[in-house]
């Protein structure tokens, strides 16, 4: 199984400007969040990418991906009918191939040489089955993520068989249905914002959309739950961190993480140390040294 296509969803009415945010990437270059994400996909061997946008946003996004324009396509969601509907519109682009699904409001930072998306794609290609990237997450963050329950794959650390999925569960529900043996109390496998999925997921999404009273309520997790039942899914614990840039101080945190993992690390640390010293002592800041600022 080879994954060469990716879908990035960025059609949410409340996240229209997020992918356009400019950040300094690890290489010290200013890029839009969308471009950083596209580069994440490219590093995973993705050859074609589709970004689903809100109606009227495609052009601005095209500008934002810069050099990646050649292999990234854009498709506007005709109506704001929710996440499930947005994802389902990628059916034609994906065709009959497995694909990588990513969300447009997350940025990733790998803890290894291999980037996060690349880890997932390699894992899915190895497993030959649908795989969702997951991260062990404290229960206080449950209102922000989908989560999976299941059990570890014997002899393969970081792999899990998924038995249940739930979208933004309460810890009450999580404790009852999403416990994973061997994990610390109060931690759950939350989705990482990227999944390697088979094309069958579109049928399941369409079924869910057809059944739903309100299509805006249909989530990817509805289709994932059916997929778990139908063909079984795995979860893979990616060695990296995800940063949700849609939350309060999300862009700031993501920027800080990128900076501290990149070439400007020294400079940023010095700035931070200065700021801390000033805050703690109440004194005026010393002029910051420009040393280390690459461009």
């Amino acid at each position, binding site marked *: 199984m080879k994954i060469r296509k990716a879908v990035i969803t960025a059609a949410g009415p409340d996240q229209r400007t997020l992918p356009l945010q400019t950040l300094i990437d690890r290489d010290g270059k200013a890029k839009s969040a969308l471009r950083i994400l596209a580069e994440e996909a490219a590093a995973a061997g993705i050859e074609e990418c589709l970004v689903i946008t809100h109606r009227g946003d495609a052009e601005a996004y095209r500008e934002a991906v810069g050099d990646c324009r050649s292999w990234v396509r854009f498709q506007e969601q005709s109506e704001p009918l929710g996440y499930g509907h947005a994802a389902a519109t990628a059916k034609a682009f994906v065709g009959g191939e497995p694909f990588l699904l990513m969300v447009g409001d997350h940025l990733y930072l790998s803890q290894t040489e291999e980037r996060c998306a690349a880890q997932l794609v390699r894992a899915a290609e190895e497993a030959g089955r649908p795989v969702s990237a997951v991260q062990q997450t*404290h*229960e*206080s*963050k*449950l*209102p922000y993520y989908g989560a999976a329950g299941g059990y570890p794959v014997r002899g393969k650390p970081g792999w899990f068989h998924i038995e249940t999925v739930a979208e933004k569960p*309460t*810890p*009450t*529900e*999580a*404790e*009852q249905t999403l*416990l994973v043996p061997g994990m610390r*109390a*109060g931690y759950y496998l939350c989705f990482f914002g990227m999944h390697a999925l088979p094309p069958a997921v579109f049928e399941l999404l369409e079924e869910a959309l057809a059944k739903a009273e309100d299509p805006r309520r249909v989530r990817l997790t509805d289709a994932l739950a059916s997929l778990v039942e139908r063909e079984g899914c795995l979860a893979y614990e990616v060695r990296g961190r995800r940063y949700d840039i849609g939350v309060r101080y999300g862009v700031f945190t993501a920027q800080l993480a990128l900076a501290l993992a990149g070439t400007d690390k020294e400079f940023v640390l010095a700035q931070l140390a200065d700021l801390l010293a000033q805050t703690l002592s109440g004194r005026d800041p010393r002029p910051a040294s420009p040393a280390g600022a690459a461009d």
Partner: protein
Amino acid sequence: MAASRLVNIITATDETARHTPIEAVCEGLSAEELLAECAALETFRRRAESLYHRVRALLFLYAIHRFHLPGRRGVSPQGRIPYEGYLRLAAGQFEEAIQLFLQVQAEEGPSAGLSSALAASYYRLGFHTLAGQVRRSVRTVRGNQWMFRMGHPLDHPLRVRPELLARDAGGARPILWERTPVRMDLTHCGWSDIFFLAMDFPEGAKVLNVSIDLGVHGRDPTPRPPVEAFFRVIDEPILRLVSVDLRAVAEIRDLAEAFDFGRDYLGLLKAAVIAAGLIPPGVEGSGCSLPDLLARLCGKGRGIELVSKVNDIPKGSRLAVSTSLLAALVAVAMRATGQTRSLTGGLDERERRLALARALLGEWLGGSGGGWQDSGGVWPGIKLITGVPAREGDPEYGVSRGCLLPRHHILGEKEAPREARRRLQESLVLVHGGMAQNVGPILEMVTEKYLLRSGPQWRARLEALGILDEILTALRRGDLRAIGRATTRNFFGPLQTIIPWATNLYTERLIDAARVRFGEAFWGFWMLGGMSGGGMGFIFAPEKRGEALEEMGPLMRGIKKELETALPFAMDPVVYDFAINEQGAQAKLLRGEEALMPLGYYTLTLPRLLRRERQELSPAQRTELDRFAAACRTRPEWSGAVRELFEVMLPRPAASEAKGKDLQSLLDELGFDRAQHEQIRADLRAGRIGLAQNRLPPNVRIEDVRPEDVVDALGWQEAESGEAAECRKAGEAALRAGQAAVVTLAAGAGTRWTQGAGVVKALHPFCKLAGKHRSFLETHLAKTRRIAREMGAPLPHVFTTSHLTHRPIEDALRRANCFGYEGPVLLSRGRSVGLRMIPTVRDLRFLWGEGEGEAIDDPQRKVTESLHAALVDWARKMGEAADYTDNAPGQCITPIGHWYEIPNMLRNGVLLSLLRERPQLKYLMLHNIDTVGADVDPALLGRHALEQAALSFEVIPRQLEDRGGGLARVDGRVRLVEGLAMPEEAIEFRLSYYNSMTTWIDIDRLLEVFGLDRESLADPDKVAEGVRAVAARMPTYITIKEVKKRWGRGQEDRYPVAQYEKLWGDMTALPELACRFFVVPRARGRQLKDPAQLDGWLRDGSAAYVERLGDWS
């Protein structure tokens, strides 16, 4: 140690062996063998891994020390109880206490006193261990655990659902409305739903539980789900809790207040808020801000309003109204925060189980606790709830045999056909008999008896299980007559075998009356809940049910009227209308015009809003006001709302003034001594008297008495020769010559006996003796009758009364024709009353700081501490040492100590007339109403006569429960010292004997002390002068008692009040009075102060002893 038969019983894998009763082993063993069993059990329980093995061993140890060792040859009747051990026990350090007691036992040999201390320690440790396990299990239920981990608002993982945040066109938010039926237990399950029981014997935990709608017959048009909870997001960062029934509102602004359960009447709502996870228990004490937490839940600047309503269903209904309300509040809050799938409609099985687990958590937090069937109303229809054996993977596995949560099986059409349900509704009359009693002690007794597997009780439990199967079969057939037969048999058979106190005279009179009135058409009685007297069911032939519905009310009220001075009633009886609820808990989102709280909410909250200018109100508040006004115009059931609101805003002052007047006139009538009262108030305020000042000066030397200071009469009852026989001969001669009379002190209201309910203790039918419920009054007369008949001479019996007890005792004696007693029965009317006072804060602190202060578990401690703080505020607000007048007059006035009882007999002419009629009368035997084993024992009378003493007091060898003074050498003089007068508590533990209060009096010698003789008794002035002179020499003690204040429908509050007393035992301090002290057996001298003592009293043979003393014909 493996040879221990009791350890083998505990560890037996064979069921029959495991259920062997402890008596089967203990009855044939000597003291030495019993002690060897104790040693084996002690070693075993320390090593046992299974919680229930440990607990059963603890209860076995308790039973051996409580019932089997005392009285065995080789076990001394008296023995030192080390004070240090007592302190440890009181502080909840049970293990340390046990070690100290065992050490003394090893050094000084076994004694009844030590065994009493060991029994109490093992008992408390057993229950402490069980309670700990239930608490742990509640915390480990999946879905509850996270709440104990959360510690900061930023970590709060719950969010109020968006539907509840959206505003309508008028700016108002919707209200989530939860309605829940209550539950009734169709079989009475033999209390098998007690957690401790169900977790050890899941196979035997079975309940047939029915969800019902309820209405008060004649008040409510139709039955409806009585429990309602309302949830709404508000625009203030507060938690507003409103109980419509208790008429209480609290606006909580900080976290500490939310955990303060005793502060107001809203403890249940607070417990629900916490158990539902709105404020998870983990944040307690974290110092977090409540507005921050609320902002996380529902947005910055917003808060939550939670409103409860139980449709004025009276307390004590035995229908689990409180637990159902807790479950409803938990459910509505869980729905609102997405912890259930559906916002509205019913709940699925997983959600219902979680609501049950959370309600349990809430009960634990709030310091209350019911059985596991009590949230049954959350489920629909009729269900069989059963215990579940713990299996691998369950948190209970390996710890207890059963799981915490039971399984609910909803009966279908085959098991409970529609026709059967209809018949049930057409036959059953549900009532609240009006009694509201604490069932806590009963639940402990049930657990204890289960763990001990005593033969008859264990067989009764198995029989009750058989009755349940019978009822299930009858239900399938729709045979209500058979159900009625079975529930009646259950009540009179197994239930009363397990707990004799499940019944009472009132209930049995009611059943008899129903039988007489309805004959064959009365199909059966059925007890609901922990004990009878409150919620009960009567089953009738359908064609007679209509009549029964109308007649049961007047019938109950009639019997209540006869018994209300004898039994604690909290309210007038009511009859319910009911219907089976086939839906269980249901919720609805009220929007737009419908978005209104219950009517009672507005009478509570609107007055404050109406005082503000309209423009000051938020758009949402204005909209709500408009909707309220519209509802008053259009909803017929709200038509009286405006009038009600008017009453609230402009309350009538008349009631309290009238109460004040009643009290004043009563005081005048009773000859209340205002001058003396003012002097006492001044002394109290100035700190000259008070709890601390009750004590003897610390430099007084108080020592235990020596053997020569007492007359050892322990074995006299059995002795047929020697000193006892001689004394008996002398006593019998005196009795035959008509030289003796009995004086029973019956002035008291049994404050402790009924927890301040204010009934006449003498009339309380406390126990079945010789097959019938007997009051203290009748019991004492039965003993007098036996002696009088045996001696062939009438024995006058005087009951001293007070303003509280005189008329009821007089009526009871007249009605019962003195219970057939042939001899003279006289009443000595009390002439001395006091007016209770608000206690001083100093005394309250003294009381709580130095009282028994049993260490209690954390949540309960918090409840207690916060209650204490509230009571201190109350005392300050009311005025320290101010008159206590804010209650029924009977609760404000009090007798002023038993010292006055004999002087009263001098003043009111009773003694004079007795002596005129019987000049030969020389001796009186004075005793407390609750010393049920006291009788005119000829041997003791003879000894008193031969001693030529003025007063001979009976004392008993001290056991742990004997608190409140004792016999001592005080600076060399042998006398009785009241507990209140002990300079330090430890001294009491060095005293071997406890005062039973039973006193043999030589009339002439006593009169001498008062400066009187038989002739001068006729001179009232001289009598008054004599009494005043001796009274002045008696110390005045300040005591604090609890009184109940009743309000609402069956609600009760308890308040501490100060009163003063002079006590009879202090007569022994008068140097000119020759006093003697007789050591008598415990069965004779023990006082029954608390109904919780009754079960042990019955089982240790004391009841049989009293039965033998009486002539019950």
